[in-house]
């Protein structure tokens, strides 16, 4: 179409003095932005096609390229912003739902940035994690049984006792950070493998999403949370029993109430084997589970999965953070879940309708605070662990999340960024230049899982060290003493209402 109503979002600056026509940019762009003219020995770039993934810029050996965000040239209009104009033009072109990828980029309040953490001074010594033990080992699972002990010896022999209770199944995490559910299909095998290998290397867990468990990842099964989603892809008894835990996915923060759709062209032979569906067919996850229309149905599924795994694995439920999240979470716990995963408004996705992603759900900070509080009020907090997800960006977000009441966090977007993602939000196109959200073998090989694994391990290590530093600063040497410890949090520039939902005091207020 000759008539172009949309504007290019990016501007490609190529410094001709630096460009050596090596064509690395040409070879790296899956969007065909760069084109080499061999007659004139120059490269011409079409910024209209650019998605702003910065792959070419990162690869250019001479620094000749700069990808700049282009300011919208439409006449300024506070109401009809460029964003709306673009969407309208595009929808008029295509007549479909506006798709997008990754988490919402809209400026909803980010409460993490309005919460400050505490440190010890004088009355209480801070602890140096380099010199003192600092424990961040975390257990996920039900913690509600009564422990029974047998006395095994006579009193004069001293203390001798034997545990006479089998603990509910627990996941043992060396750090309270896990990798979110990202399916093989939505991301590449190499990305899955990196997540799996890093989990296993560090002693934490990753989640299969609804993509099934690839045969080549069986060796990491001990660090795998297998998800059972509405499509039931890849689910059989073997799958359930291989995993370390089972997670029933009801909803996802980026698209509450919406199912999933992996287009047939992405269902390669490998993915078809892993998901147990015919090659080339669309993989459609329905919006609801059609066997769960109410809480008692969920309870049945939880118990069915526990039976299927002989009560040896924790079974949890993942929901999006929606308005009624506290009672929903309570219901899930009462339905028998060993953990509840709550995915917040800013959670990522491979593909979601923009309207849903940017307008449905609530921020995870408020959700975790109200869920934790509600479960405690009901005296059932210890019956399940709370996992949260939805844009945990740093170790300080983790610390704050735990102090608000989470047992551990899931990180998805952060993990992808570590593997190269530049948040261009074009996951749904399958043309990810970083080899992550794609199944094109030309692109998937760009993510060397050895590098991916190393970088993820480094991330886990770095965050764990930072968590330890912050814990030590607050005079705490075990992560469990931070859990729900909102005394260590203070809010800044947020309303009383928000403070009260978060259950924290304002900065400046003492204990």
């Amino acid at each position, binding site marked *: 179409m000759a008539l172009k109503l949309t504007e290019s979002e990016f501007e490609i600056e190529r410094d001709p003095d630096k460009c050596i026509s090596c064509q690395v940019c040409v070879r790296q762009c899956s969007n065909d932005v760069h084109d080499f003219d061999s007659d004139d020995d120059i490269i011409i770039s079409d910024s209209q096609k650019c998605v702003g993934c910065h792959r070419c810029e990162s690869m250019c050996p001479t620094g000749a390229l700069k990808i700049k965000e282009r300011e919208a040239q439409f006449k300024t209009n506070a109401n009809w912003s460029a964003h709306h104009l673009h969407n309208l033009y595009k929808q008029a072109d295509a007549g479909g739902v506006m798709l997008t990828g990754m988490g919402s980029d809209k400026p909803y309040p980010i409460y993490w940035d309005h919460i400050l953490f505490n440190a*010890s001074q004088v*009355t*209480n*010594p801070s*602890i140096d994690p380099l010199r*003192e*033990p600092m*424990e961040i*080992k975390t*257990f996920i*699972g039900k*913690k*509600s*049984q*009564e*422990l*029974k*002990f*047998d*006395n*095994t010896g006579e009193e004069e022999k001293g*203390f*001798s*006792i*034997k*545990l*006479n*209770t089998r*603990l509910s199944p*627990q996941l043992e995490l060396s750090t309270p950070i896990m990798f979110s559910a990202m399916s093989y299909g939505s991301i590449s095998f190499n990305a899955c493998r990196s997540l799996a290998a890093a989990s296993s290397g560090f002693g934490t867990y990753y989640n299969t999403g609804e993509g099934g468990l690839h045969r080549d990842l069986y060796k990491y099964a001990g660090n795998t949370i297998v998800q059972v989603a509405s499509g039931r892809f890849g689910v059989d008894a073997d799958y359930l029993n291989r995993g370390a835990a089972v997670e029933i996915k009801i909803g996802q923060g980026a698209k509450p109430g919406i199912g999933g759709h992996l287009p047939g062209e992405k269902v390669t032979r490998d993915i078809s084997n892993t998901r147990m569906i015919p090659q080339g067919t669309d993989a459609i996850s329905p919006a609801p589970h059609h066997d769960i229309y109410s809480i008692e149905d969920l309870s049945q599924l939880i118990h069915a999965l526990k039976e299927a795994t002989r009560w040896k694995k924790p079974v949890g439920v993942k929901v999006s953070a929606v308005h009624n999240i506290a009672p929903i979470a309570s219901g899930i716990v009462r339905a028998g879940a060993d953990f509840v995963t709550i995915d917040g408004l800013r959670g990522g996705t491979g593909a979601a309708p923009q309207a849903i992603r940017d307008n449905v759900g609530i921020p995870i900070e408020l959700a975790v605070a109200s869920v934790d509080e509600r479960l*405690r009020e009901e*005296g*059932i*907090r*210890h019956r399940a662990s709370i996992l949260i997800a939805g844009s945990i960006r740093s170790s300080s977000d983790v610390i704050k999340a735990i*102090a608000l009441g989470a047992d551990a966090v899931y990180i998805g977007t952060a993990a992808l960024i570590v593997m190269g993602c530049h948040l261009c939000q074009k996951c749904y196109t399958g043309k990810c230049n970083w080899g992550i959200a794609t199944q094109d073998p030309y692109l998937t090989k760009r993510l060397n899982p050895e590098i991916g694994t190393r970088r993820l391990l480094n991330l886990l290590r770095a965050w764990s060290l930072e968590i330890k530093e912050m814990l030590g600063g*607050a*005079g*705490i*040497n*075990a992560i*469990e*003493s*931070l*859990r*729900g*410890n*909102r*005394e*260590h949090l203070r809010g800044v520039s947020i309303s009383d209402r928000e403070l009260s939902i978060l259950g924290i005091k304002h900065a*400046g*207020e*003492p*204990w």
Partner: protein
Amino acid sequence: MDSCKTQLYKCEPKNTQEYFSRFRIPSGCAIFGIMDEAGTAFSGSSVIDGISLMRERSNGLGGGFAAYGIYPQYEDDWAFHILYDDKEAKSQAEDELGKSFKVLFSEEIPTRKVIGVEDPPILYRYFLKSASSLPSRKDNVNGADGEARSRTREEDYIVDFVMRVNRGITGAYIISSGKNMGIFKGVGYPEDIGNFFRLEQYRGHLWTSHGRFPTNSVGWWGGAHPFGLLDWSVVHNGEISSYGTNKRFVSGFGYECTLSTDTEVITYLFDLIARKQKVDLELIHMILAAPLWDEIERMPEDIKQAARALRILYGSALLNGPFSIIVGSNEFMYALNDRIKLRPMTAARKDDRLYVASEEAPLRLVCPSPDYVWRPGGGEPVIGRIKRAGKKEGHKAGAAVKQQDKGK
């Protein structure tokens, strides 16, 4: 300074008790405890002597004592110490008492005038029997098990009552609610408080004491230590960094922390874990000062499994941060340091007597030639148990714990 500070907040605390409930006040402290494991009673003067030696660990804003075995004439009855801001509060509270208990005897707690102890509240003690309407009294279950269960119910009832009064009646505060024991505390240096309450005239087999160094200037008698509930009394030196976690943990079991003090939450943790959940005294340190995971890994298999399970289930009960505590009850004295020993604590034994103190000097003062003196490691409990034989059972909080062992 205090008034300036409080004016910062939109709604000022109604009274000092509310102030204490709203703000956690860190404090440095002195603690001291003596137990005669044979159950032989002795005068409170030695404990006053001991705590007075650690005067510089206090700043005159709080001192107190817990004494066990001091009311043998009411051995099987509830002994309440209540402080009142005014007569109005007293009559309200006594109404409540009358509804729930049969008051066997009540009197003002005898005191003497002492320089440095000013403006005492109204101090009263009551000896009570549960009213016959209590469900436990209707219980016709026989045998030890049934008795234990009815005892637990009665204790739960007392806990509820204490919480109701302390939360609900402005100006009334129950500071002690056990049997054959009492807590004496107030604003002042501990030795002055001891003199004020004439403690040299009491004889008990277990005494604990506390001198306080709070970082605020509000004086409220109820805020002094020891903190008590049922037979439990807790004296504590330290600041619990895990307070928020611990508080919300016990709140899930119905304990409302009204005072925002570490001592209060420690008391509730003991009540929950030892009395209600019947965890063996020998295991409690694995919860409150849980061993490091590394240490657990190195333990013999049976103990490792026990320690691991306790730590997994009771993670939120871990007391993190510096502390040394002495928990008193009719049956035992239990002293514990935080797991990496960030606060001092020394213990000594001489014949049947067990001594625990923040420092060694007071031990040497009251017990010049101990059999031995040691500094317990972080997380290593010091436990003294009553060794009396042929005593009537049924009035000892600690018995519930022992009961469980027998059951297995």
